């Protein structure tokens, strides 16, 4: 069957691509999408470790991993919602959604 390391490497790859998207996209929404990718990579790791742990301890039902997954879902949703609200608000004031042009605090 599939070794644990395959999942870890896949998650690492997804995380790295997410980081790349965050660092290189100009559009603020693009940056948000990159963050979603990174959170998904974390979720893959959590699910893989949960499966691994359950397999080693078949008698008990370990729930830490599942609760952690659920919390990541909630945090991802919260982050998207507030992030988009900020972007929409900034777009209304500055008429741009490019992150580099939102420089109101620049001296």
């Amino acid at each position, binding site marked *: 069957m599939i070794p644990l390391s395959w999942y870890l490497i896949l998650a690492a790859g997804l995380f790295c691509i997410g980081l790349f998207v965050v660092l290189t996209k100009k559009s603020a929404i693009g940056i948000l999408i990159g963050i979603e990718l990174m959170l998904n990579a974390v979720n893959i790791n959590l699910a893989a470790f949960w499966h691994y742990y359950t397999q080693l301890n078949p008698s008990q039902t370990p729930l830490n991993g599942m609760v952690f997954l659920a919390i990541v879902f909630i945090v991802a949703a919260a982050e998207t919602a507030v992030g*988009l609200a900020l972007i929409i608000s900034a777009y209304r004031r500055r008429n741009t959604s490019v992150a580099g042009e939102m420089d109101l605090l620049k001296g």
Partner: protein
Amino acid sequence: MTAMQIIFLIVAAVTLGGALMIATSRRMMHTVLWLVLTLMGVAVLFALLQANFFSVVQVLVYIGAIAILILFGVMLTRRSMVDAGESLVHKNWWVVAVVIALLFAAIVISIQPWGAAHTPLVELMEFKEPISDLGEALVDPAAYLIPFEVSSVLLLAVMVAAIYIAVDRKGGKS
């Protein structure tokens, strides 16, 4: 190479391919559609890991809600219907790419010596999905009651904050 491994590799290729297309796509709308493909791949990975509940919740929350919300955001922050053809990417992206490739290589090399990482994940036989146990633990004061209630407070805060920010103050309407 078993059938499971082949399925995993295909799903992984689709997931990473979708993610790469996000990085390279020039049109905002295509970026979101590629994001949906990637999220779908992650949902299939959850199913392969026998986290049935989270596999379905991934589709429900990420594709059904978060991706749709991002689409609404894309529509609300554009001047014209035609997508910008200009590059949405910084011009010295290759520096970032090199650094991140090094980071990836470091991660892969660092998990190689760890023996447990090579344990094959077998199918959990006689396995009842612990949704019911999860539900019990969430409302058990000795277990996860605090995260359960705090998450509802977090959602309330999100709703209040996002509506406060997004809806104009004067008149309460846009």
